[in-house]
């Protein structure tokens, strides 16, 4: 049995999911020992973080462009 993934590993999996690339080794780990809900919540959290990041980028770009 593969060990239970820690938070960092789970975060990496979620980030990998956002780009759509993952190895089957990690996939195996995620599905054999992770809990679906944790991934779902982590995914939602990353999504919110991502939205905030994009907004930050836009504000930065706009202030650089002086608009």
């Amino acid at each position, binding site marked *: 049995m593969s060990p239970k993934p820690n938070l960092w590993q789970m975060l990496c999996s979620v980030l*990998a*999911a*956002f*780009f*759509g*690339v*993952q*190895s*089957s080794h*990690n*996939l*195996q780990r995620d*599905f*054999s020992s992770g809990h679906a809900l944790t991934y779902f919540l982590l*995914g939602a959290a990353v*999504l919110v973080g*991502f*939205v905030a990041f*994009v*907004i930050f*980028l*836009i*504000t930065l*770009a*706009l202030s650089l462009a002086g*608009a």
Partner: protein
Amino acid sequence: MNSLDQTLDTAAEHHGPASGISRWLYTTNHKDIGTLYLWFSFIMFLLGGCMALSIRAELFQPGLQLMEPDFFNQMTTMHGLIMVFGAVMPAFVGLANWMVPLMIGAPDMALPRMNNWSFWILPFAFTMMVSTLFMEGGGPNFGWTFYAPLSTTYAPPSVTFFIFAVHMMGISSIMGAINVIATILNLRAPGMTMMKLPLFVWTWLITAFLLIAVMPVLAGVVTMMLMDIHFGTSFFNAAGGGDPVLFQHVFWFFGHPEVYIMILPAFGIVSQIIPTFARKKLFGYASMVYATASIAFLSFIVWAHHMFTVGMPLVGELFFMFTTMLIAVPTGVKVFNWVATMFRGSMTFETPMLFALAFVVLFTIGGFSGLMLAIAPADFQYHDTYFVVAHFHYVLVPGAVFSIVAAVYYWIPKWTGNMYNETMGRWHFWLSFIGVNITFFPMHFVGLAGMPRRIPDYALQFADFNAVASVGAFIFGFSQLLLLYNVIQCIRSKDKATTEVWESAEGLEWTVPSPAPYHTFAEPPLVK
């Protein structure tokens, strides 16, 4: 082992399918219901196709020849609604009904009675919707996106029936989705772990969650319309402090995930077919699953790219432009993986593979135009033109529809126990492929040249390409009758299919005899 299996065992022993019409009315068998869904969707496809042909006939030449503008608007609206909610979505539900239990080694869907109900709602919903065409003032004429206030204050009186029809098919979709999720999560055969699920099952699982997330939002938005029309509320009416733009935000919050609802199962189908005919395992299975999840998540934060011209502040435009462009990454991953699956394979080109290959190429072209549309400043030129029409028809016709046709050819030997006629299958493919491109490729040109969508008549400079597109539409439309012929021919054929059907197909569905018995996997198979 358990009582469900026992009941199924006894059922299998004591009676097969009931005879006559009651078999279909009362059936709780996933195969029967799948068949019902598929036939229903094919009828809707022909009906919506007739509407498309009447649109193309009117647009064959400049000037009004066949219909009044108001009837033309009803045709475009009904064509869109029927194709989206009546043809593509039920076809995918039908395929899920047939194949998901077979692929995961389950005896049936988890909730068979609800399954029956969710199908039988549909014919009533669509009868109601189509009947509006014969009502006073005509049917819905406000586009399948039904923007307020055109669909509220200015709508024909039949709009109420349209709203109820949308409610009914929404309920049907939600029940169907619940059933799929319950089946996949609870009824997998021992050993069938999540990471062994075939991709069609995976994409359907994610689609089902999307359906549950957004169909209620659609129900919400039509309920708000209903309240605005009949109960004096002002959700979308500026006079009462509402906002017509709010409608577009709520609609597209549903509408964009809806787009993926129509394409994710198609990804799944193609990911089943290509490895079979390339005789090689799917490249990057894990990535495929994750890319699907990624597309599903991202689909919730891109909706306003459908409304770049409504006058959003700069920050909003940029936000939706960036997030939309990002969707290209996981979508690209999928295309690259399919190509990598073919690379160094040992390919043969039976009809399902032909449709799947056409899917990859033409869907990618639709993806490219999608990427162009994501660029907000350029979208100001493309928005609401035939370029958009070309884009979404490229992802929906050679995308979703081709994948469904591919799935039918791929699995029909398992359904009927007979092989279809390969020559006729190829005829169907080539006529469809040529027809689809003649129809939709010129639409890019007229769109870029400045032809708005949803117009019954156009300026002279658009005439030539429109004539070409109309010819293509009739080729494509009539060649779909070949599908009907092929299916019927296959049902009556004497050319028996083997259990495996295809040389190197993998998966539980190829371990049951052809045709698949009325009850399968009453004894769960053991998956290594």
